[in-house]
C-alpha cells in the first residue's frame, strides 16, 4: 500500500482509530494540543475532527475517526471510518487500545492489520489497568503484533513523544512484517481469491486480502465495491459465493462465525501470552459506585439529586451571574448607540432603530451565556465521568416505551428538561444515538423542552394570570412538556417514523473517570460557541426581517401629523417654562433641544447600567468632562436656573417617550406583521389569541426571546407611570377580556410551538433533509394550535377557569402517558424462550 521509495516523509496523514471509551479523544488532544477543528464528513452528519502538529520537522495531520468497535458496514460511523481509511489512505493508523480490556480492543486491531495499513498502537489507560491489577507485557505484545506499541496515559499526557516518534518510524519503515489472522482450512481459498482479484482493477486500490476475506464473509460494503469496480456478477463475487456455500455445506456452520472464531482464538492467545492479572479482586471503584447509584431503590434518588444540582447551579446561580454580566452587554449597546446616527425628535433614522433592534435581540440571547457555560460544563462532567451512560441505562425502559432511546437523555437535558436549556446543542447531541428511529424522534421532540427563552414568557403570563398559583403553574409547564414530548414521540414513531431503521440497545457502561478540566472546558466552550454563533448569524438576520415587517409600511400621514402637532405642543411648553431662566437663549432652535434630550436619555441609560456609588460618581465626572456646557441641566446641583431647565427637560423627555411609544404601537398595528396578525384573528379566535398575541408568536419564530420584547411593545399603556410589564398586560387585558384561560391557551401553544429558526436549521443539519425541517415547523404549529383551541374553546364551553382547566388538562395528559407506557410494555414483553430447534432448521433451509 504505502511502499513509497522516497526518503523521509515530512508530511504525514495519520488516522486515529479505536473503540469508543478507549480514550481516543484524550489521545487526540495529547497529540495535537488545542489546534484542532471540527467539520462534518462529506454527505453525512458525523463529526470529523482534524488537528495538526509539528514534530522533528515533520508536519503531521491527525484525523480523529469516529469511535467504532469494528469495521463492518452495519453502522454509519463504521462506514465513515472505513471509507476514510480506504479512500484517504493515511500514512499511519494510530490504533488506540484500552489496556484494561485488551482482548476486545484487539478485534479491532486485527481488522485494521488485515487492511494492511502501517500501524502504531497506543496502549492507553495503562494507569487504570495497573490499578485493576492488570499487567501488560508491552515488549511481547509489540513482538506478537509486529508493530510499535507505546504505553500511554492520555489524560496525563504520558507517552506523547514516544508515540510521535513511533508514528514517524512507522511511516518511514519499508518492511511491515505484521501479524496475520490465519483462517485455517479456508486459507488456500482466501489466497486464491486474493490472487485472482490481483489481476483486476481492484489491485492497488484496495487491500486485496481484506477484500477477499470480506467477500467470503458476505460483507455488504465489500460487495458494493466489487460491484462498482467489476460490475454485476463478477468472477470474484461468484467465486466468493462458491467458497462460502461449499464451506457451509461441509462444516455445517456459518462462514462468518468460523472466521470470527479464528480471530477470537488469535486474540485470546495474544492476551494470554501478554497479560497477567495479579489481582483477582473485582471490587474496583467503579463497581462500588455502581452498587450505590444503580441500586434499585437509590437510583431514582440519585438521578433526581443530579438533576436538582444541575438546576440549582446552572439555572439559579447562573441567573445570579447574569446580573454581573448584563452591565457589560448594556455597555456594548450604548457604545453602538453612540456610533449610530443620533436620534431624531420623534422618528429615529432607520439605520439607528434597526441597529439598536439588532443589538437588543442579540443581547437578549447573549445574556444567557453564564448560564450556558455552567450548564454545559456540568453536562460535560456527567458525560466524561461515565454517569451519563448510567442515566441512559436507568431511563432506557421508560424512553423505549415511547419510541425513544436511553441516550435521548442527554439531548433532553441540554434542551432544558427542567426549565432552561437550548434546543440547538440539544439537537446536536442526538448524534450519539445509534438507533435511527429513536434519533429522529429525539430530534423532533427536543424542541418541546423548555428552552431558556420560553421561561421569561411563561413567567410573564404566570405573574399576571396565575399569581396565587405561581409555583403550581410553573411546575405544570415544566413537567407538561416532558409528557408532551413522550406522547408526541410515541405518535411519530408509530406513524411517520415507523419505517426507519432501528438498532439494538447494546451499550457499554464505561468505567468512571475523573473528568479533566481541559476536556470539560473544551466541550462547554464548544457548545456555548455554537449557541453564540446561532445568535451572531441567524437570530440577527431574522431579527432584521422581523423588524422590517414590523416597521413598514409605516404611519399614515394624518396620524403622523397628529403626533407631530402634539410634540410641538410639548416643545412650546418647554420653551415657556424656561423662558425666565438665564439659559433660555441656548435653546432657541429645535436641534439644540433634541441634542439635550438625547444627552439626557443617554445619561439616564448609562446610570441604569452602573452599579454602586463609586461607579455612578465616576459616570458623573465623565459627563462633566465631556459636556461641560450641558452637564448642569442633567444634574443641576445648586444652580437655580439650571434646575428650572432640568425640570422642564424631564417633563419634555417623558412626553416624548410616551408619544414615541404610541407611534410605535400604531406603526406595529399598521405593519405587515400586524396585518397578518389581524387577518389570522378569525382562525386564532378559537384558541383565544388576539392579534397582538399573533404578532408576538410570529416574531418569536426568529428567537423566542423576542416574544417578550414584542409583547412589551404592544402593551405600552402605563409604561410612563413606570408600571411593570406584568401590570400593563394585566390591566390592558382586563379591559380586552383576556382571562387566565386565554393565558393558559397561549402558554400551551408556546410550549408546543415549533423550534426557533436556529433549531430548525440544526434539524436540517442533523437529519440532512429539508423535508424533516419543514415537518418540524408545520407539525408543531398545527398541533399547538389544535391543543390551544381545545383548551380555550373546550374550557369556555365547560365553563372552567384557567387554573381548573390546567388541572383537567394536566391530569388527562399524565394519564394518557401512563396508559400508553404501560400498554406498550405489556404488548412488547419478549417471549421467554424461542423454539431453537425450529429456528435452526429454518436457518439451514
Amino acid at each position, binding site marked *: 500500500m504505502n511502499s513509497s521509495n522516497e526518503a523521509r516523509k515530512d508530511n504525514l496523514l495519520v488516522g486515529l482509530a479505536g473503540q469508543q471509551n478507549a480514550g481516543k479523544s484524550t489521545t487526540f488532544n495529547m497529540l495535537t494540543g488545542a489546534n484542532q477543528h471540527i467539520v462534518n464528513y462529506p454527505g453525512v452528519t458525523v463529526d470529523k475532527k482534524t488537528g495538526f502538529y509539528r514534530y522533528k520537522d515533520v508536519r503531521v495531520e491527525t484525523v480523529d475517526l469516529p469511535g467504532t*468497535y*469494528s469495521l*463492518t458496514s*452495519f*453502522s454509519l460511523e463504521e462506514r465513515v471510518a472505513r471509507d476514510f481509511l480506504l479512500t484517504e489512505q493515511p500514512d499511519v493508523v494510530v490504533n488506540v487500545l484500552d489496556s*484494561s*480490556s485488551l*482482548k*476486545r480492543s484487539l*478485534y479491532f486491531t486485527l481488522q485494521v492489520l488485515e487492511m494492511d495499513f502501517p500501524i502504531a498502537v497506543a496502549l492507553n489507560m495503562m494507569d487504570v489497568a495497573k490499578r*485493576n491489577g*492488570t499487567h501488560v507485557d508491552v515488549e511481547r505484545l509489540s513482538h506478537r503484533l509486529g508493530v510499535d506499541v507505546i504505553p500511554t496515559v492520555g489524560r496525563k499526557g504520558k507517552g506523547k513523544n514516544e508515540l510521535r516518534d513511533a508514528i514517524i518510524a512507522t511511516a518511514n519503515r519499508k518492511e511491515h512484517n505484521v501479524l496475520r489472522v490465519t483462517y485455517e482450512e479456508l486459507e488456500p481459498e482466501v489466497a486464491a481469491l486474493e490472487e485472482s482479484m490481483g489481476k483486476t482493477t481492484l489491485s492497488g486500490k484496495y487491500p486485496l486480502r481484506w477484500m477477499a476475506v470480506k467477500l467470503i464473509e458476505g460483507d455488504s460494503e465489500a460487495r458494493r465495491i466489487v460491484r462498482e469496480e467489476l460490475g454485476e456478477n463478477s468472477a470474484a463475487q461468484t467465486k466468493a459465493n462458491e467458497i462460502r456455500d461449499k464451506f457451509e455445506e461441509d462444516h455445517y456452520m456459518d462462514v462468518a*462465525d468460523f472466521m*470470527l*472464531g479464528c480471530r*477470537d482464538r488469535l486474540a485470546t492467545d495474544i492476551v494470554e501470552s501478554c497479560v497477567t492479572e495479579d489481582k483477582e479482586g*473485582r471490587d474496583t471503584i*467503579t463497581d462500588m459506585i*455502581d452498587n450505590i447509584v*444503580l441500586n*434499585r*431503590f437509590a*437510583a*431514582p434518588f440519585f438521578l433526581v439529586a443530579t438533576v436538582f444540582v444541575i438546576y440549582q447551579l446552572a439555572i439559579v446561580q447562573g441567573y445570579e451571574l447574569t446580573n454581573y454580566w448584563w452591565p457589560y452587554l448594556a455597555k456594548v449597546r450604548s457604545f453602538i448607540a453612540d456610533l449610530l446616527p443620533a436620534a431624531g425628535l420623534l422618528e429615529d433614522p432607520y439605520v439607528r432603530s434597526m441597529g439598536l433592534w439588532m443589538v437588543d435581540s442579540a443581547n437578549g440571547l447573549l445574556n444567557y451565556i453564564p448560564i450556558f457555560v455552567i450548564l454545559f460544563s456540568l453536562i460535560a462532567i456527567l458525560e466524561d465521568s461515565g454517569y451519563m*451512560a448510567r442515566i441512559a*441505562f*436507568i431511563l*432506557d*425502559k*421508560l424512553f*423505549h416505551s415511547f419510541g425513544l432511546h*436511553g441516550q435521548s437523555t442527554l439531548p433532553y437535558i441540554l434542551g432544558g428538561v427542567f426549565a432552561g436549556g437550548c434546543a440547538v446543542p440539544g439537537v446536536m447531541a442526538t448524534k450519539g444515538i445509534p438507533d435511527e428511529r429513536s434519533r429522529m424522534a429525539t430530534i423532533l421532540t427536543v424542541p418541546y423542552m423548555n428552552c431558556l427563552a420560553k421561561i421569561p414568557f411563561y413567567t410573564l403570563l404566570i405573574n399576571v394570570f396565575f399569581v396565587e398559583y405561581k409555583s403550581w403553574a410553573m411546575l405544570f409547564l415544566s413537567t407538561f412538556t416532558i409528557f408532551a414530548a413522550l406522547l408526541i414521540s410515541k405518535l411519530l414513531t408509530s406513524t411517520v417514523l415507523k419505517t426507519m431503521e432501528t*438498532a*439494538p*440497545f*447494546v*451499550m*457499554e*457502561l*464505561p*468505567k468512571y473517570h475523573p473528568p479533566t478540566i481541559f476536556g470539560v472546558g473544551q466541550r462547554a466552550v464548544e457548545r456555548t460557541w455554537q449557541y453564540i454563533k446561532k445568535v451572531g448569524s441567524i437570530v440577527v438576520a431574522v431579527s432584521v426581517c422581523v423588524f422590517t415587517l414590523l416597521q413598514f409600511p409605516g404611519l399614515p400621514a394624518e396620524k403622523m401629523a397628529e403626533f407631530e402637532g402634539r410634540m410641538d405642543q410639548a416643545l412650546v411648553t418647554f420653551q415657556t417654562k424656561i423662558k425666565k431662566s438665564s439659559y433660555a437663549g441656548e435653546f432657541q432652535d429645535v436641534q439644540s433641544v433634541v441634542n439635550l434630550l438625547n444627552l439626557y436619555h443617554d445619561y439616564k441609560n448609562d446610570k441604569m447600567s452602573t452599579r454602586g456609588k463609586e461607579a455612578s460618581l465616576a459616570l458623573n465626572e465623565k459627563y462633566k468632562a465631556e459636556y461641560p456646557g450641558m452637564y448642569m441641566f442633567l444634574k443641576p446641583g445648586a444652580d437655580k436656573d439650571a434646575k428650572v431647565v432640568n425640570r422642564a427637560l424631564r417633563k419634555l423627555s417623558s412626553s416624548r417617550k410616551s408619544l414615541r411609544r404610541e407611534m410605535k404601537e400604531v406603526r406595529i398595528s399598521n405593519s405587515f406583521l400586524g396585518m397578518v396578525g389581524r387577518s389570522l384573528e378569525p382562525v386564532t379566535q378559537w384558541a383565544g389569541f388576539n392579534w397582538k398575541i399573533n404578532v408576538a408568536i410570529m416574531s418569536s419564530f426568529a428567537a423566542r426571546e423576542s416574544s417578550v420584547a414584542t409583547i412589551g411593545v404592544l402593551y405600552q399603556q402605563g409604561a410612563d407611570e413606570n408600571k411593570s410589564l406584568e401590570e400593563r398586560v394585566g390591566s390592558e387585558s382586563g379591559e380586552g377580556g383576556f382571562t387566565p384561560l386565554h393565558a393558559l391557551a397561549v402558554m400551551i401553544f408556546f410550549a408546543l410551538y415549533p423550534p426557533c429558526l436556529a433549531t430548525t436549521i440544526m434539524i436540517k443539519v442533523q437529519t440532512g433533509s429539508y423535508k424533516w425541517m419543514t415537518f418540524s415547523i408545520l407539525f408543531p404549529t398545527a398541533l399547538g394550535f389544535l391543543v390551544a383551541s381545545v383548551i380555550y374553546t373546550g374550557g369556555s364551553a365547560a365553563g372552567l377557569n384557567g387554573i381548573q382547566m390546567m388541572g383537567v388538562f394536566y391530569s388527562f395528559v399524565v394519564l394518557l402517558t401512563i396508559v400508553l407506557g404501560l400498554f406498550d410494555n405489556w404488548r*412488547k*414483553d*419478549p*417471549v*421467554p*424462550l*424461542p423454539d*431453537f*430447534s425450529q*429456528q*435452526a432448521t429454518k436457518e439451514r433451509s
Partner: protein
Amino acid sequence: MPGRRDRHGHGHGKVCKCCTLMEVSSGKKVKIRCHHAKGAVRQRLLDLGFVPQTDIEVIRRAPLGDPIECRVANYKVALRKSEACLIEVEQY
C-alpha cells in the same frame, strides 16, 4: 450438542441448563452458547464481546427491570431484554 435439556426435580416444570440470557437471574455466571440474532444485532453483540464460549456474569437489572447489565471479561455492557433473549447461554 444443542438442545440437551436436563430435568431437575425443583418442583416447577422444566428447568433447563440452557436458556436465554434474559432469564438468568442477577449475580449468576453463564457461558454463551450461541446467538440467534442476525445481521447488525449479531455484529454489535460480537463487537462488545458476546462471543460464543465466553463467560459472562449478569450483574443487575435496571430499576425498571430492563435493560440488563452484564460483565463481559472486565467491562460492563447493558443490553435490552429483546436482545438478551436472542443469546442462548448455559448455566454453571
